[in-house]
């Protein structure tokens, strides 16, 4: 049995590397929705069938020769805190964490690959990478998908492609997303314009934790919604060329404009954030995210020296509620967590 609380005292190794364009693109993610032929979709399967799907998927996954070792946990064997830890690490979705039933997740030790079993679809395969690396991420997920396909017959039709429980995912079953850090566009108040353009392109804009989460601290997740009628490569190309690259360019321009025209106001925000995080005695995870967002910007603009970007990336994850709880290994209420979080961040920034 693996010890989740131990693993979650650190960040996944994919997060510690510095990826391309990582001053603006935090991470890239590709996920495939797949269902196993011969079974009902999860929501319509009875409890016995759900258990059967879980066992089947587990056995195939473990014998698929994925070249990296997998950790595997069923939701039934995890505590509430452990499920929250996995959610904060983007290894499982809220749905998998919160709903009852035979559900599980398997992931590689570096946390770059995760496979959820019995979410909305039988399999949700995801590959994550640092910075803007969608093409590499796609290549990797295809390798995984090919290996699994040798073991599992997927529900597939020649007209509609990979058949998914929700028709909005049918076809390629692909969701391509990037996590963007856009403080410049937020401060120059151009962010709404970017979102409107993204929505016109049928792209979804969400918060840090995907579906149903509000954007906090200038972090935005951008992803495709259309999954049918285009190849995976076209969907990725469309997102990169028509959305991510222009947005990155606008963000760079906005940052330069702020440096030229409002450097004092910008510095004020950055150093206030530094002041708060190095001195606060109580801080909520939301405020911490807002402040870390300014620190991140300050480092990339060369205004803050002596703080590593990897420290900030670490704090993003480890200052989340369940991770703070886990680091201090006590049952804390919200205000005790705020104290522990303030202390943890203070120590990390002073070292």
């Amino acid at each position, binding site marked *: 049995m693996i010890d989740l609380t131990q693993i979650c005292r650190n960040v996944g190794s994919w997060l510690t590397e510095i990826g391309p364009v990582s001053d603006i693109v935090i991470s890239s993610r590709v996920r495939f929705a797949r*269902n*196993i*032929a*011969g*079974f*009902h*979709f999860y*929501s*319509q399967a009875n409890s016995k069938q759900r258990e059967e799907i879980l066992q089947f998927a587990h056995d195939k996954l473990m014998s698929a020769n994925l070249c990296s070792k997998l950790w595997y946990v069923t939701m039934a064997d995890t505590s509430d805190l452990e499920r929250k830890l996995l959610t904060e690490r983007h290894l499982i979705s809220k749905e998998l964490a919160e709903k009852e039933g035979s559900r599980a997740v398997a992931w590689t030790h570096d946390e770059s690959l995760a496979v959820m079993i019995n979410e*909305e679809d039988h399999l949700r395969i995801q590959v994550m990478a640092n910075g803007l690396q969608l093409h590499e991420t796609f290549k990797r997920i*295809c390798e995984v*998908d090919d290996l699994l*396909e*040798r*073991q*599992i*017959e*997927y*529900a*597939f*039709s*020649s*007209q*509609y*492609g*990979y*058949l998914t*429980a*929700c*028709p*909005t995912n*049918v*076809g*390629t079953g*692909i969701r391509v997303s990037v996590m963007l850090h856009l403080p410049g566009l937020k401060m120059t108040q151009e962010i709404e*314009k970017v979102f*409107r*353009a993204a929505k*016109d392109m*049928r792209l979804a804009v969400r918060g840090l934790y995907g579906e149903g989460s509000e954007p906090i601290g200038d972090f935005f997740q951008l992803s495709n919604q*259309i*999954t*049918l*009628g*285009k*190849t*995976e490569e076209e969907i990725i190309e469309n997102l990169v060329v028509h959305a991510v690259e222009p947005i990155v360019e606008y963000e760079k321009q906005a940052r330069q404009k702020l440096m030229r025209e409002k450097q004092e106001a910008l510095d004020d925000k950055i150093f206030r954030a530094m002041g708060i995080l190095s001195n606060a005695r109580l801080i909520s995870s939301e405020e911490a995210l807002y402040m870390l967002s300014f620190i991140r910007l300050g480092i990339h603009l060369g205004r803050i020296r002596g703080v590593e970007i990897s420290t900030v990336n670490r704090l993003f994850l480890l200052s989340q509620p369940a991770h703070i709880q886990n680091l201090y290994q006590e049952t804390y209420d919200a205000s005790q967590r705020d104290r522990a979080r303030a202390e943890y961040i203070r120590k990390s920034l002073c070292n």
Partner: protein
Amino acid sequence: MQCQMCDKTATVHLTEIVNGTKIERHLCEECAQQEGITIKSQVPINELLNNIIAAQEEAQELSDLRCPQCHTSWADFRKRGLLGCPNDYLAFSKALDPLIERAHNGATSHVGRSPAQHKGPAGQQAKMLRLRQELQRAVESENYEIAARIRDEISQMSTN
């Protein structure tokens, strides 16, 4: 307001958003028609009623659709937003096809990756799973003769 293309009074007002910019057009009826913008100004009341009735009948007909494999009905799907099994794509095709087309910006068929069939031991899997489900049903309903036949078929498949 004057028509943007001639001197007549503009009666057709159109607001479009193209690439994030708002474009407003004010035209008279003739110019609008030339531009390919048609507006049916008056629909006779009986035609309107007939349309509503036809739509209702069709809605009734659709909500009665039911998948023979998982027993999900079209109405269930509309309520939950999730399909019951892969066969629903066939069973509901009449109602589902237009919906998929709308959701995917006019696309009606898949391009992109597809499983290379029969390249591994997966080829027979769907049949095997179906047989196992049938076996379970036969045992539950105490149809032992059928159960024995299915069991033989399964054991033959697994030795092949």
